[in-house]
Protein backbone atom coordinates (compact mmCIF):
# COMPACT_ATOMS: atom_id res chain seq x y z
CA UNK A 1 0.00 0.00 0.00
CA UNK A 2 1.50 3.34 -0.91
CA UNK A 3 2.16 5.93 1.76
CA UNK A 4 -0.57 8.34 0.72
CA UNK A 5 -3.24 5.65 0.82
CA UNK A 6 -1.97 4.40 4.14
CA UNK A 7 -2.14 7.90 5.58
CA UNK A 8 -5.71 8.22 4.32
CA UNK A 9 -6.61 4.91 5.86
CA UNK A 10 -4.98 5.86 9.13
CA UNK A 11 -6.90 9.11 9.19
CA UNK A 12 -10.20 7.37 8.43
CA UNK A 13 -9.67 4.96 11.27
CA UNK A 14 -8.32 7.46 13.78
CA UNK A 15 -11.27 9.79 13.16
CA UNK A 16 -13.65 7.24 14.56
CA UNK A 17 -11.59 6.26 17.58
CA UNK A 18 -11.55 7.89 21.01
CA UNK A 19 -8.50 10.07 21.64
CA UNK A 20 -7.04 7.48 24.04
CA UNK A 21 -7.23 4.74 21.40
CA UNK A 22 -5.71 7.02 18.81
CA UNK A 23 -2.74 7.59 21.08
CA UNK A 24 -2.35 3.85 21.60
CA UNK A 25 -2.22 3.25 17.86
CA UNK A 26 0.16 6.18 17.44
CA UNK A 27 2.52 4.77 20.06
CA UNK A 28 2.41 1.39 18.40
CA UNK A 29 3.49 2.73 14.96
CA UNK A 30 1.17 0.19 13.43
CA UNK A 31 1.10 -0.58 9.70
CA UNK A 32 -2.52 0.22 8.91
CA UNK A 33 -2.53 -1.88 5.77
CA UNK A 34 -2.14 -4.98 7.96
CA UNK A 35 -4.73 -3.94 10.49
CA UNK A 36 -7.91 -6.00 9.99
CA UNK A 37 -10.03 -5.53 13.07
CA UNK A 38 -10.19 -3.53 16.26
CA UNK A 39 -12.27 -5.10 19.00
CA UNK A 40 -13.42 -2.93 21.85
CA UNK A 41 -15.25 -4.31 24.87
CA UNK A 42 -15.92 -2.41 28.07
CA UNK A 43 -13.64 -3.67 30.82
CA UNK A 44 -11.73 -5.90 28.41
CA UNK A 45 -8.31 -5.50 26.80
CA UNK A 46 -7.83 -3.45 23.65
CA UNK A 47 -7.58 -6.12 20.97
CA UNK A 48 -6.57 -5.92 17.34
CA UNK A 49 -6.42 -8.42 14.54
CA UNK A 50 -3.20 -7.62 12.75
CA UNK A 51 -1.83 -9.61 9.85
CA UNK A 52 -4.28 -12.41 10.57
CA UNK A 53 -3.33 -12.73 14.24
CA UNK A 54 -4.84 -11.37 17.44
CA UNK A 55 -2.83 -9.04 19.67
CA UNK A 56 -3.52 -6.92 22.72
CA UNK A 57 -2.02 -3.46 22.99
CA UNK A 58 -0.56 -2.38 26.31
CA UNK A 59 -0.90 1.24 27.55
CA UNK A 60 2.36 2.12 25.80
CA UNK A 61 1.03 0.79 22.50
CA UNK A 62 3.22 -2.32 22.50
CA UNK A 63 1.90 -5.62 21.17
CA UNK A 64 1.36 -8.21 23.86
CA UNK A 65 -0.30 -11.59 24.12
CA UNK A 66 -0.96 -11.22 27.86
CA UNK A 67 -4.41 -9.85 28.56
CA UNK A 68 -3.55 -8.60 32.04
CA UNK A 69 -0.84 -6.30 30.67
CA UNK A 70 -3.10 -4.83 28.03
CA UNK A 71 -4.83 -1.47 28.00
CA UNK A 72 -8.35 -1.88 29.35
CA UNK A 73 -11.18 -0.27 27.41
CA UNK A 74 -13.54 1.94 29.41
CA UNK A 75 -17.20 2.88 28.91
CA UNK A 76 -16.20 6.51 28.40
CA UNK A 77 -13.97 5.66 25.46
CA UNK A 78 -16.64 3.50 23.88
CA UNK A 79 -19.11 6.37 24.19
CA UNK A 80 -16.62 8.79 22.68
CA UNK A 81 -15.90 6.39 19.83
CA UNK A 82 -19.62 6.02 19.19
CA UNK A 83 -19.98 9.80 19.05
CA UNK A 84 -17.34 9.99 16.36
CA UNK A 85 -18.71 7.03 14.45
CA UNK A 86 -22.16 8.57 14.38
CA UNK A 87 -20.91 12.13 13.81
CA UNK A 88 -22.53 13.03 17.12
CA UNK A 89 -25.86 11.89 15.70
CA UNK A 90 -27.01 8.58 17.09
CA UNK A 91 -30.51 9.31 15.79
CA UNK A 92 -29.19 9.10 12.23
CA UNK A 93 -28.21 5.47 12.70
CA UNK A 94 -31.38 4.01 14.17
CA UNK A 95 -31.87 1.56 11.35
CA UNK A 96 -28.21 0.53 11.33
CA UNK A 97 -28.23 0.02 15.09
CA UNK A 98 -31.26 -2.22 14.75
CA UNK A 99 -29.24 -4.32 12.34
CA UNK A 100 -26.20 -4.20 14.57
CA UNK A 101 -23.67 -2.42 12.39
CA UNK A 102 -22.76 0.92 10.85
CA UNK A 103 -20.64 1.75 7.85
CA UNK A 104 -18.26 4.67 8.17
CA UNK A 105 -16.21 6.71 5.74
CA UNK A 106 -13.79 4.46 3.91
CA UNK A 107 -16.25 1.57 3.94
CA UNK A 108 -15.16 0.27 7.32
CA UNK A 109 -17.81 -1.69 9.15
CA UNK A 110 -18.51 -1.15 12.83
CA UNK A 111 -20.43 -3.94 14.51
CA UNK A 112 -22.16 -2.92 17.73
CA UNK A 113 -23.63 -4.88 20.60
CA UNK A 114 -25.32 -3.85 23.80
CA UNK A 115 -28.78 -3.90 25.31
CA UNK A 116 -31.43 -4.42 22.65
CA UNK A 117 -34.77 -2.70 22.99
CA UNK A 118 -37.67 -4.65 21.52
CA UNK A 119 -41.09 -3.53 20.48
CA UNK A 120 -43.21 -6.61 20.13
CA UNK A 121 -41.08 -8.92 18.00
CA UNK A 122 -39.14 -6.17 16.31
CA UNK A 123 -35.85 -4.71 17.42
CA UNK A 124 -36.50 -1.04 18.12
CA UNK A 125 -33.12 0.24 19.13
CA UNK A 126 -30.00 -0.51 21.11
CA UNK A 127 -28.73 1.15 24.25
CA UNK A 128 -25.78 0.73 26.61
CA UNK A 129 -23.55 -0.16 23.70
CA UNK A 130 -20.49 -1.77 25.23
CA UNK A 131 -19.01 -3.84 22.42
CA UNK A 132 -17.63 -2.57 19.15
CA UNK A 133 -15.99 -4.51 16.38
CA UNK A 134 -14.37 -2.26 13.81
CA UNK A 135 -13.72 -4.28 10.66
CA UNK A 136 -11.49 -2.46 8.27
CA UNK A 137 -12.43 -2.54 4.62
CA UNK A 138 -9.85 -4.03 2.32
CA UNK A 139 -10.06 -3.14 -1.31
CA UNK A 140 -7.80 -5.50 -3.23
CA UNK A 141 -7.78 -4.34 -6.82
CA UNK A 142 -6.84 -7.08 -9.20
CA UNK A 143 -7.75 -9.98 -6.92
CA UNK A 144 -10.31 -11.19 -9.47
CA UNK A 145 -7.86 -11.17 -12.40
CA UNK A 146 -7.41 -14.91 -12.42
CA UNK A 147 -11.03 -15.93 -12.14
CA UNK A 148 -12.54 -13.43 -14.52
CA UNK A 149 -11.65 -15.43 -17.68
CA UNK A 150 -13.66 -18.36 -16.31
CA UNK A 151 -16.75 -16.23 -15.86
CA UNK A 152 -16.81 -14.35 -19.14
CA UNK A 153 -18.62 -15.70 -22.18
CA UNK A 154 -19.60 -14.24 -25.52
CA UNK A 155 -22.76 -12.59 -24.30
CA UNK A 156 -21.77 -11.14 -20.99
CA UNK A 157 -20.92 -13.45 -18.14
CA UNK A 158 -22.23 -16.67 -16.63
CA UNK A 159 -24.57 -16.42 -13.69
CA UNK A 160 -22.03 -16.86 -10.92
CA UNK A 161 -22.18 -17.76 -7.26
CA UNK A 162 -19.18 -17.06 -5.03
CA UNK A 163 -19.15 -19.41 -2.06
CA UNK A 164 -17.19 -19.23 1.17
CA UNK A 165 -17.52 -19.06 4.93
CA UNK A 166 -17.35 -15.58 6.52
CA UNK A 167 -14.02 -13.72 6.46
CA UNK A 168 -12.58 -15.51 3.47
CA UNK A 169 -12.75 -12.55 1.12
CA UNK A 170 -15.81 -13.18 -1.02
CA UNK A 171 -17.04 -9.60 -0.73
CA UNK A 172 -13.60 -8.30 -1.71
CA UNK A 173 -13.58 -10.66 -4.67
CA UNK A 174 -17.08 -9.66 -5.70
CA UNK A 175 -16.13 -5.98 -5.50
CA UNK A 176 -13.18 -6.47 -7.79
CA UNK A 177 -15.28 -8.49 -10.24
CA UNK A 178 -17.79 -5.64 -10.32
CA UNK A 179 -15.02 -3.12 -10.95
CA UNK A 180 -13.42 -5.12 -13.75
CA UNK A 181 -16.70 -5.95 -15.48
CA UNK A 182 -17.79 -2.34 -15.23
CA UNK A 183 -14.56 -0.83 -16.52
CA UNK A 184 -13.87 -3.48 -19.14
CA UNK A 185 -10.48 -3.74 -20.81
CA UNK A 186 -8.95 -3.71 -24.27
CA UNK A 187 -10.39 -7.12 -25.21
CA UNK A 188 -13.74 -6.80 -23.49
CA UNK A 189 -16.00 -3.77 -23.35
CA UNK A 190 -17.36 -2.51 -20.07
CA UNK A 191 -20.77 -3.63 -18.82
CA UNK A 192 -23.43 -1.72 -16.94
CA UNK A 193 -23.44 -3.21 -13.48
CA UNK A 194 -26.17 -2.66 -10.91
CA UNK A 195 -25.21 -3.33 -7.33
CA UNK A 196 -27.63 -3.86 -4.48
CA UNK A 197 -25.46 -2.94 -1.55
CA UNK A 198 -27.68 -3.74 1.38
CA UNK A 199 -24.93 -3.41 3.97
CA UNK A 200 -22.86 -0.74 2.19
CA UNK A 201 -19.96 -3.16 1.99
CA UNK A 202 -19.38 -3.24 -1.74
CA UNK A 203 -19.38 0.42 -2.66
CA UNK A 204 -19.03 1.60 0.94
CA UNK A 205 -21.00 4.70 0.02
CA UNK A 206 -20.50 7.66 2.29
CA UNK A 207 -22.96 10.52 1.75
CA UNK A 208 -23.97 8.75 -1.46
CA UNK A 209 -20.48 8.53 -2.93
CA UNK A 210 -18.80 5.11 -3.29
CA UNK A 211 -15.57 5.01 -1.31
CA UNK A 212 -14.39 1.91 -3.13
CA UNK A 213 -13.62 1.73 -6.81
CA UNK A 214 -16.54 -0.16 -8.30
CA UNK A 215 -16.00 0.86 -11.90
CA UNK A 216 -17.27 3.61 -14.11
CA UNK A 217 -20.44 1.85 -15.31
CA UNK A 218 -21.73 0.84 -11.91
CA UNK A 219 -24.93 2.04 -10.28
CA UNK A 220 -25.35 1.37 -6.59
CA UNK A 221 -28.53 1.05 -4.60
CA UNK A 222 -27.09 1.68 -1.18
CA UNK A 223 -28.68 0.38 1.99
CA UNK A 224 -31.50 -1.22 0.04
CA UNK A 225 -32.89 -4.67 0.85
CA UNK A 226 -31.73 -7.18 -1.76
CA UNK A 227 -35.10 -8.33 -2.98
CA UNK A 228 -36.56 -4.87 -3.55
CA UNK A 229 -33.22 -3.60 -4.80
CA UNK A 230 -32.92 -6.22 -7.54
CA UNK A 231 -36.42 -5.44 -8.79
CA UNK A 232 -35.76 -1.72 -8.71
CA UNK A 233 -32.53 -2.04 -10.65
CA UNK A 234 -34.13 -4.18 -13.33
CA UNK A 235 -36.90 -1.64 -13.80
CA UNK A 236 -34.92 1.53 -13.55
CA UNK A 237 -31.25 1.19 -14.47
CA UNK A 238 -31.21 -1.35 -17.33
CA UNK A 239 -28.18 -3.22 -15.99
CA UNK A 240 -26.40 -5.99 -17.89
CA UNK A 241 -25.14 -7.47 -14.64
CA UNK A 242 -26.63 -7.34 -11.17
CA UNK A 243 -24.41 -8.02 -8.19
CA UNK A 244 -25.60 -8.88 -4.68
CA UNK A 245 -23.75 -9.93 -1.59
CA UNK A 246 -24.71 -12.68 0.82
CA UNK A 247 -27.93 -14.09 -0.54
CA UNK A 248 -29.55 -16.77 1.54
CA UNK A 249 -33.30 -16.50 1.91
CA UNK A 250 -36.03 -17.94 -0.27
CA UNK A 251 -37.10 -14.43 -1.22
CA UNK A 252 -33.56 -13.61 -2.32
CA UNK A 253 -33.57 -16.64 -4.57
CA UNK A 254 -36.92 -15.77 -6.10
CA UNK A 255 -35.68 -12.25 -6.82
CA UNK A 256 -32.51 -13.69 -8.36
CA UNK A 257 -34.57 -15.93 -10.64
CA UNK A 258 -36.60 -12.92 -11.69
CA UNK A 259 -33.39 -11.10 -12.58
CA UNK A 260 -32.09 -14.08 -14.56
CA UNK A 261 -35.38 -14.41 -16.41
CA UNK A 262 -35.04 -10.80 -17.47
CA UNK A 263 -31.85 -11.71 -19.32
CA UNK A 264 -29.58 -10.04 -16.82
CA UNK A 265 -26.42 -11.76 -15.65
CA UNK A 266 -26.20 -12.32 -11.94
CA UNK A 267 -23.22 -12.21 -9.63
CA UNK A 268 -23.93 -13.28 -6.08
CA UNK A 269 -22.18 -14.52 -2.98
CA UNK A 270 -23.40 -17.00 -0.40
CA UNK A 271 -22.11 -18.57 2.78
CA UNK A 272 -21.01 -22.15 2.38
CA UNK A 273 -18.01 -24.42 2.58
CA UNK A 274 -18.51 -26.59 -0.49
CA UNK A 275 -20.74 -27.20 -3.48
CA UNK A 276 -22.41 -30.04 -1.58
CA UNK A 277 -23.09 -27.68 1.27
CA UNK A 278 -24.85 -25.34 -1.18
CA UNK A 279 -26.74 -28.25 -2.77
CA UNK A 280 -28.03 -29.28 0.63
CA UNK A 281 -29.36 -25.87 1.47
CA UNK A 282 -33.08 -25.84 0.76
CA UNK A 283 -33.03 -22.48 -0.98
CA UNK A 284 -30.06 -23.20 -3.25
CA UNK A 285 -30.48 -26.94 -3.84
CA UNK A 286 -33.00 -26.49 -6.62
CA UNK A 287 -30.93 -23.81 -8.36
CA UNK A 288 -27.93 -26.14 -8.43
CA UNK A 289 -29.99 -29.07 -9.69
CA UNK A 290 -31.60 -26.99 -12.41
CA UNK A 291 -28.17 -25.68 -13.42
CA UNK A 292 -29.26 -22.09 -13.07
CA UNK A 293 -25.80 -20.87 -12.17
CA UNK A 294 -23.16 -21.28 -14.86
CA UNK A 295 -20.20 -20.89 -12.52
CA UNK A 296 -19.49 -21.58 -8.87
CA UNK A 297 -16.39 -20.04 -7.36
CA UNK A 298 -15.41 -21.71 -4.11
CA UNK A 299 -13.04 -19.90 -1.75
CA UNK A 300 -10.88 -21.93 0.53
CA UNK A 301 -12.19 -22.04 4.09
CA UNK A 302 -9.68 -20.77 6.65
CA UNK A 303 -7.70 -18.75 4.10
CA UNK A 304 -8.29 -15.23 2.90
CA UNK A 305 -8.83 -14.72 -0.81
CA UNK A 306 -7.63 -18.14 -1.84
CA UNK A 307 -9.60 -19.88 -4.59
CA UNK A 308 -10.23 -23.53 -3.90
CA UNK A 309 -12.00 -24.32 -7.16
CA UNK A 310 -14.19 -23.03 -9.95
CA UNK A 311 -17.01 -25.29 -11.12
CA UNK A 312 -19.29 -25.13 -14.12
CA UNK A 313 -23.06 -25.75 -14.01
CA UNK A 314 -22.58 -29.55 -14.09
CA UNK A 315 -20.15 -29.47 -11.20
CA UNK A 316 -17.06 -30.12 -13.33
CA UNK A 317 -13.94 -28.50 -12.01
CA UNK A 318 -12.60 -25.80 -14.33
CA UNK A 319 -9.93 -24.60 -11.99
CA UNK A 320 -8.47 -26.13 -8.89
CA UNK A 321 -6.67 -24.32 -6.10
CA UNK A 322 -4.40 -27.35 -5.71
CA UNK A 323 -2.54 -25.80 -8.60
CA UNK A 324 -1.44 -23.33 -5.98
CA UNK A 325 -3.05 -20.28 -7.45
CA UNK A 326 -3.63 -17.65 -4.82
CA UNK A 327 -5.48 -14.46 -5.57
CA UNK A 328 -3.17 -11.83 -4.23
CA UNK A 329 -4.01 -9.00 -6.57
CA UNK A 330 -1.70 -6.73 -8.44
CA UNK A 331 -1.57 -4.30 -5.58
CA UNK A 332 -3.25 -4.37 -2.24
CA UNK A 333 -4.82 -1.12 -1.11
Amino acid at each position, binding site marked *: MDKVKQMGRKEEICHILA*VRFRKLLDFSSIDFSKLQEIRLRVGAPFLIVYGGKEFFLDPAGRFTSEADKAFVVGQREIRETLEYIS*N*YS*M*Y*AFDEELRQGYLTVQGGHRVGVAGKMIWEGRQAKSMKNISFLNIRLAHEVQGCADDILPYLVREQGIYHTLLISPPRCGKTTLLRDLIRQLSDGDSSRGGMTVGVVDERSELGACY*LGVPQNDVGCRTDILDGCPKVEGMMMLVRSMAPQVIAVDEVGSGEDVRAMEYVMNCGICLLATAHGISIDDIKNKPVFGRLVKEKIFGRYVLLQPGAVGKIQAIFDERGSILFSGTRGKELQGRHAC
Partner: protein
Amino acid sequence: MLKAAGVILILFGCGGLGWHAVLRHTARIKMLAELEQALQYLYGEIEYSGSDMMELLDRLAARQGYFGDLWKNMGDCLRSYDGKGFFYHWKRELHKLGTAGYLKRGDMELLCSIGENLGNMDRQTQLHTLEIFQVRLREILLQARQEYGEKVKVSGIVWITAGLFLALVLV
Protein backbone atom coordinates in the same frame (compact mmCIF):
# COMPACT_ATOMS: atom_id res chain seq x y z
CA MET B 1 -25.91 79.17 23.12
CA LEU B 2 -23.57 76.65 24.72
CA LYS B 3 -26.28 75.60 27.14
CA ALA B 4 -28.72 74.99 24.32
CA ALA B 5 -26.11 72.89 22.53
CA GLY B 6 -25.47 70.94 25.72
CA VAL B 7 -29.19 70.26 26.18
CA ILE B 8 -29.48 69.10 22.59
CA LEU B 9 -26.47 66.82 22.96
CA ILE B 10 -27.79 65.29 26.17
CA LEU B 11 -31.21 64.73 24.60
CA PHE B 12 -29.67 63.17 21.49
CA GLY B 13 -27.38 61.01 23.61
CA CYS B 14 -30.22 59.72 25.74
CA GLY B 15 -32.46 59.32 22.71
CA GLY B 16 -29.67 57.30 21.09
CA LEU B 17 -29.45 55.05 24.12
CA GLY B 18 -33.22 54.60 23.96
CA TRP B 19 -32.95 53.74 20.29
CA HIS B 20 -30.19 51.29 21.07
CA ALA B 21 -32.41 49.58 23.65
CA VAL B 22 -35.16 49.30 21.04
CA LEU B 23 -32.70 47.80 18.59
CA ARG B 24 -31.66 45.23 21.17
CA HIS B 25 -35.27 44.17 21.62
CA THR B 26 -35.65 43.92 17.87
CA ALA B 27 -32.46 41.90 17.53
CA ARG B 28 -33.56 39.54 20.30
CA ILE B 29 -36.84 38.87 18.51
CA LYS B 30 -35.04 38.31 15.22
CA MET B 31 -32.60 35.93 16.89
CA LEU B 32 -35.36 33.94 18.55
CA ALA B 33 -37.22 33.75 15.24
CA GLU B 34 -34.04 32.58 13.50
CA LEU B 35 -33.52 29.95 16.17
CA GLU B 36 -37.09 28.79 15.74
CA GLN B 37 -36.48 28.38 12.01
CA ALA B 38 -33.27 26.49 12.71
CA LEU B 39 -35.07 24.11 15.06
CA GLN B 40 -37.79 23.56 12.48
CA TYR B 41 -35.12 22.83 9.90
CA LEU B 42 -33.34 20.39 12.20
CA TYR B 43 -36.64 18.68 12.97
CA GLY B 44 -37.53 18.29 9.30
CA GLU B 45 -34.12 17.08 8.24
CA ILE B 46 -33.84 14.60 11.09
CA GLU B 47 -37.33 13.30 10.47
CA TYR B 48 -37.13 12.89 6.71
CA SER B 49 -33.49 12.51 5.73
CA GLY B 50 -31.86 11.48 9.00
CA SER B 51 -28.87 13.71 8.19
CA ASP B 52 -26.17 13.82 10.81
CA MET B 53 -25.30 16.86 12.93
CA MET B 54 -22.18 17.81 11.00
CA GLU B 55 -24.07 17.95 7.73
CA LEU B 56 -26.90 19.91 9.33
CA LEU B 57 -24.56 22.37 11.02
CA ASP B 58 -22.84 23.01 7.69
CA ARG B 59 -26.16 23.71 6.00
CA LEU B 60 -27.28 25.99 8.81
CA ALA B 61 -23.93 27.81 8.69
CA ALA B 62 -24.46 28.50 5.00
CA ARG B 63 -27.57 30.52 5.90
CA GLN B 64 -25.42 32.85 8.07
CA GLY B 65 -27.57 35.17 10.22
CA TYR B 66 -27.18 35.79 13.93
CA PHE B 67 -26.25 32.18 14.69
CA GLY B 68 -24.10 31.66 11.60
CA ASP B 69 -20.88 31.71 13.61
CA LEU B 70 -22.25 29.26 16.16
CA TRP B 71 -23.20 26.70 13.50
CA LYS B 72 -19.93 27.14 11.64
CA ASN B 73 -17.70 26.98 14.70
CA MET B 74 -19.60 23.99 16.05
CA GLY B 75 -19.04 22.12 12.80
CA ASP B 76 -15.33 22.95 12.94
CA CYS B 77 -15.06 21.91 16.59
CA LEU B 78 -16.78 18.59 15.99
CA ARG B 79 -14.47 17.88 13.10
CA SER B 80 -11.48 18.27 15.38
CA TYR B 81 -12.41 14.96 17.11
CA ASP B 82 -10.63 16.22 20.20
CA GLY B 83 -12.32 14.06 22.79
CA LYS B 84 -14.60 16.79 24.08
CA GLY B 85 -18.30 16.16 23.78
CA PHE B 86 -20.90 17.99 21.72
CA PHE B 87 -22.25 19.85 24.74
CA TYR B 88 -18.80 21.04 25.82
CA HIS B 89 -18.26 22.66 22.43
CA TRP B 90 -21.81 23.98 22.32
CA LYS B 91 -21.47 25.79 25.66
CA ARG B 92 -18.11 27.24 24.73
CA GLU B 93 -19.21 28.44 21.31
CA LEU B 94 -22.43 29.83 22.69
CA HIS B 95 -20.56 32.05 25.10
CA LYS B 96 -18.22 33.16 22.35
CA LEU B 97 -21.12 34.15 20.12
CA GLY B 98 -20.92 37.91 19.56
CA THR B 99 -24.66 38.35 19.16
CA ALA B 100 -25.47 36.42 22.36
CA GLY B 101 -25.60 39.75 24.23
CA TYR B 102 -29.02 40.47 22.69
CA LEU B 103 -30.51 37.44 24.41
CA LYS B 104 -31.86 37.26 27.91
CA ARG B 105 -30.59 34.84 30.51
CA GLY B 106 -33.61 32.60 30.03
CA ASP B 107 -33.02 32.49 26.28
CA MET B 108 -29.41 31.47 26.83
CA GLU B 109 -30.48 28.74 29.24
CA LEU B 110 -32.87 27.39 26.64
CA LEU B 111 -30.11 27.46 24.02
CA CYS B 112 -27.82 25.63 26.42
CA SER B 113 -30.40 22.88 27.02
CA ILE B 114 -30.91 22.50 23.27
CA GLY B 115 -27.20 21.72 22.88
CA GLU B 116 -27.32 19.33 25.79
CA ASN B 117 -30.03 17.35 24.08
CA LEU B 118 -28.79 17.23 20.52
CA GLY B 119 -27.36 14.19 18.85
CA ASN B 120 -27.19 11.59 21.56
CA MET B 121 -30.64 10.05 21.27
CA ASP B 122 -32.56 7.76 18.98
CA ARG B 123 -34.59 9.45 16.28
CA GLN B 124 -37.95 9.35 17.99
CA THR B 125 -36.63 10.79 21.23
CA GLN B 126 -34.60 13.38 19.36
CA LEU B 127 -37.64 14.57 17.46
CA HIS B 128 -39.74 14.64 20.60
CA THR B 129 -37.08 16.68 22.41
CA LEU B 130 -36.84 19.14 19.52
CA GLU B 131 -40.60 19.47 19.58
CA ILE B 132 -40.52 20.42 23.26
CA PHE B 133 -37.86 23.04 22.60
CA GLN B 134 -39.85 24.41 19.67
CA VAL B 135 -42.91 24.83 21.90
CA ARG B 136 -40.90 26.58 24.61
CA LEU B 137 -39.21 28.80 22.09
CA ARG B 138 -42.51 29.71 20.47
CA GLU B 139 -43.85 30.78 23.86
CA ILE B 140 -40.81 32.94 24.52
CA LEU B 141 -41.02 34.44 21.05
CA LEU B 142 -44.72 35.17 21.40
CA GLN B 143 -44.14 36.88 24.72
CA ALA B 144 -41.23 38.88 23.28
CA ARG B 145 -43.40 40.04 20.37
CA GLN B 146 -46.25 41.01 22.67
CA GLU B 147 -43.91 42.97 24.89
CA TYR B 148 -42.16 44.59 21.99
CA GLY B 149 -44.48 47.57 21.49
CA GLU B 150 -44.61 48.21 25.19
CA LYS B 151 -40.85 48.00 25.50
CA VAL B 152 -40.32 50.39 22.61
CA LYS B 153 -42.63 52.89 24.27
CA VAL B 154 -41.06 52.45 27.70
CA SER B 155 -37.52 52.68 26.35
CA GLY B 156 -38.37 55.82 24.43
CA ILE B 157 -40.11 57.50 27.36
CA VAL B 158 -37.56 56.45 29.95
CA TRP B 159 -34.52 57.59 28.00
CA ILE B 160 -36.05 60.86 26.82
CA THR B 161 -37.22 61.60 30.36
CA ALA B 162 -33.79 60.72 31.62
CA GLY B 163 -32.34 63.09 29.05
CA LEU B 164 -34.64 65.89 30.12
CA PHE B 165 -33.83 65.24 33.75
CA LEU B 166 -30.10 65.26 33.07
CA ALA B 167 -30.42 68.41 31.00
CA LEU B 168 -32.29 70.13 33.83
CA VAL B 169 -29.82 69.01 36.47
CA LEU B 170 -26.65 69.66 34.51
CA VAL B 171 -27.62 72.75 32.54
